[in-house]
């Protein structure tokens, strides 16, 4: 055993370790043993008591390539990403810090553009950027710009949202079309020679989660399905709650262009990243009402009830348009384009 562990430590990090799938999870679990007991669950936000209130705290790093993409840039993404991690915990986002690692030779005008879009996104989300840091490294020691943001928010007192809280009879709501961000980014990669009009859905979700949170304890789980897509988010919920989730393919909104691009590249839209979508598991009694309310928000116009929670073994299934039924698996490894 000792020998095996030692061998594993001598291996090197590969890109699969950063994919957000199970390879990443294994590595993080191994590394966090340093803190004593292994981290039981790795949530989007940590929740800590502070006086009589509870605070949500989170941090995230952004290395998106290209830095500017259709529908946003690394600045907007880094603010929205952290705002959304706080928002889906049921918190009101309050303060944010940002630090940038910039490669020598990066254009100052581009840097300014990125910071301006951070400010714009923060204003829109009602979060204040209260601090930051800048480091410059030699050419070749970073790729353009990397951004880290950390955010803090106040947890609403009327909600108890948790990934293990899905109950039989609950409905699953998605706030709009899936896979837009992943396909928008992929379409910009060198070597991808198809043009799409797909824009990233990158957006702050705090106003949308605010609407959902009005329904108090009827709201069981909220997630923003980023890396690994809707499939991973639903699997996390099903696993943590010990329930079966069944979704209906015909109800899941997928843009035509996203569907076609996925077909071309051999990807499953359910596993493609989003950056401005909310998946909410809510009591069946209020699901229709919540969905209608969400539709009034600009980021929830295409909200739809896509599935239901059932008693039974942990797992996610989908009724297909063709009339069959299949498993919805978590993303594993890197998402690779298909080759034949």
């Amino acid at each position, binding site marked *: 055993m000792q020998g095996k562990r030692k061998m594993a430590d001598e291996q090197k990090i*590969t890109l699969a370790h950063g994919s957000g799938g*199970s390879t990443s999870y294994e590595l993080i679990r191994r590394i966090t043993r340093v803190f004593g007991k292994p981290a039981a669950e790795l949530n989007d936000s940590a929740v800590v008591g502070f006086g009589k209130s509870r605070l949500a705290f989170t941090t995230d790093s952004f290395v998106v390539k290209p830095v500017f993409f259709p529908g946003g840039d690394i600045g907007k993404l880094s603010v929205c990403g952290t705002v959304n991690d706080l928002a889906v915990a049921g918190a009101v986002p309050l303060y944010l810090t940002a630090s940038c690692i910039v490669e020598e030779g990066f254009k100052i005008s581009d840097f300014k553009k990125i910071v301006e879009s951070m400010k714009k996104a923060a204003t829109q989300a009602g979060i204040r950027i209260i601090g930051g840091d800048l480091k410059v490294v030699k050419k070749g020691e970073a790729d353009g710009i990397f951004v880290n943001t950390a955010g803090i928010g106040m947890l609403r007192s009327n909600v108890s949202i948790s990934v293990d809280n899905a109950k039989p009879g609950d409905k699953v709501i998605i706030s709009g079309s899936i896979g837009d961000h992943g396909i928008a980014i992929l379409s910009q990669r060198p070597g991808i020679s198809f043009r799409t009009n797909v824009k990233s859905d990158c957006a702050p979700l705090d106003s949308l989660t605010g609407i959902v949170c009005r329904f108090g304890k009827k709201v069981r789980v909220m997630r923003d399905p980023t890396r690994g897509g809707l499939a991973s988010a639903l699997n996390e919920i099903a696993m943590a709650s010990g329930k079966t989730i069944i979704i209906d393919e015909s109800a899941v909104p997928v843009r035509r262009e996203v569907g076609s691009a996925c077909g071309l590249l*051999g990807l499953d839209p359910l596993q493609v990243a989003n950056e401005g979508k909310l998946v909410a598991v809510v009591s069946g009694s209020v699901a229709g009402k919540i969905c209608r309310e969400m539709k009034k928000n600009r980021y929830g116009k295409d909200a739809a009830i896509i599935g239901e929670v059932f008693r039974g073994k942990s797992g996610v299934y989908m009724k*297909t348009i063709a009339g069959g039924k*299949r498993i919805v698996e978590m993303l594993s490894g*890197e998402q690779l384009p298909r*080759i034949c």
Partner: protein
Amino acid sequence: MPAIVKELHREFAGPTRFMEVCGTHTMAVFRHGIRSMLPPGLELVSGPGCPVCVTPAGKIDEAIALAGKKGIILATFGDMLRVPGTRSSLEKQRAEGADVRVVYSCADALKLADETGKKVVFFAIGFETTSPTIAQTILDARRTGKKNFFVYTALKLIPPAMRALLESGEVKIDGFMCPGHVSAVIGTKPYGFIPRDYRIPCVVAGFEAYDILESLLMLVRMKKSGKPEVANQYCRWVRTDGNQRAVEILNSVFETSDAEWRGIGVIPSSGLNLRKEFLEFSAERFVDSGISAPEEKSGCRCGAVLRGAVKPTDCPLFGKKCTPDNPAGACMVSSEGTCAAYFRYAGKKKNG
């Protein structure tokens, strides 16, 4: 239940085993949940139509060695990165410092040669679908007088592999669902020997749910009537003669040769090698022969899976020592691999 499924149930007469030859079909069958709609007794087995999966480990070892050479960039499709060779994979070698680049087409590799000025070796895998574009790229390289672009080929042909499966007699197959995109290039005629010599029906099939269900229905009917032929379900893309231009380009650059298939062995005239007029683009000159004796990881049953002889779930490593994150065999790596499809969609969990 959709009408086509009802029809399939109505027409179905007794235990039948069809093979979907191509990995894209395997994936589509799972993704559309088609297995859950089939009449009991209608079994689908997956065939050798995944180019990543049938590339022998020795070939991967040689590619790894190529990638490690000074001044060489190895460019290939993303799926090849994690395929285990005998000892390592291209992904692991990249982490060790080898210059391995993922490209989406051979033309991108040629562009890479332009941009970097370094020797670029394209590790070419694929079937009749991919090969004409690779041939065209080599013609482009010739036309522009490229001196730093090379191709390391492991290209293969589908019909000879089907003949080899039938000749071995290992698995009883009642019908073939043939890959529509391969036939978009070669047409339907190259499968003619199957109904003629083996009395087994073939349907060239598309990849949507309806395409697959209709193809199965066509196979069931042909089996019932006892009049096997090569039928074309994918007629919106596939002509009987295929794409003559693509075939011409392919044949102008490549010639057939015997080729080794992982899990199957050497199949006569089943591979494509550069014609001697194009040997200047061959990467063989950089290859040190005899690097390794290809061998599978002990217990790995990829070979039998590729022949349709066993299901992935019959393999002792499946879902335990072999997962998409930590693959022991090639069939677990590719997005078109049979084991990966079973793992993702058939509900076999990691600890199951």
